[in-house]
């Protein structure tokens, strides 16, 4: 999986992480590292572009959740604990939508990524867009 980072025009506080390739248990920490680096460089909001990610497992959700927590000022998930990170995700879903991290998916509601977001309830915690401009405007 490759990740590139850019910013929308005149919105330096928003980082767009563009992923290409599968996001799974073998590489989800790469996404956490990229988001953490963007945050350290001044980003307060992150848009994760998953339109070129054919597959995302629950590990990808752990990465998204960890970044959302970090952007909200909380400690990120202890991913080494595995189970506990996923419990924390469950609690966050119950807590409702957070404002600092959003994702871009392709428009196919039956895609593997859309299924993963919906079936885990993460789309209640992380706002999903199919239009980049709309996603940026929502920050």
């Amino acid at each position, binding site marked *: 999986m490759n990740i590139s980072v850019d910013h929308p025009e005149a919105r330096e506080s928003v980082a767009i992480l563009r992923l290409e390739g599968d996001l799974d248990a073998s590489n989800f920490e790469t996404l956490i590292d990229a988001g953490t680096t963007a945050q350290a460089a001044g980003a307060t909001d992150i848009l994760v572009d998953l339109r070129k990610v054919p597959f995302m497992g629950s590990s990808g959700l752990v990465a998204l959740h960890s970044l959302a927590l970090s952007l909200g000022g909380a400690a990120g998930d202890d991913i080494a604990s595995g*189970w506990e990170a996923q419990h924390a*995700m*469950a609690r966050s879903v119950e807590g409702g939508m957070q404002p600092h991290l959003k994702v871009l998916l392709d428009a196919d509601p039956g895609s593997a990524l859309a299924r993963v977001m919906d079936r885990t309830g*993460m789309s209640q915690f992380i706002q999903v867009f199919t239009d980049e401009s709309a996603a940026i405007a929502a920050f």
Partner: protein
Amino acid sequence: MIENQRRLSLPAATLGDLARIREFIADTAVSLGANPDAVPDIVIAVNEAVANVLRHGYRGPGPIEIDVDQEQRTRAIVVRLRDSAPAFDPTSHPAPDLTAALEGRRPGGFGIDLAKKCVDGLAYRRRGASNELTFVKELSKHDERTAR
């Protein structure tokens, strides 16, 4: 009656093999007649189970064996995942508890819950020193959905 069977054996699987495993599951399911709408669910379920075995069972590389069958009578795709990690029955695992207090929480999470939601049946048995997890995806449900 089992009409077809394809097998993938990895003597020392790692997380880096997940992509290869997903490709095997998807290609085999399609070749056995699975509706394309059903394939992502099967792939997601097996991916989650294998990732759990490698991360929490073996905590490193370990042997994985996967059989994919089509049962002609029920028109179902059946995937059997075998590993040699310590005994663990994910089917008895509770869904993530959104309300439990910190001290009352038990291990469990989205991965297993996600796998359960993606298939029509999930069964576990311990066979000697191996765990065997069986996933069943009923193709007729997807055929009906697609025909509507």
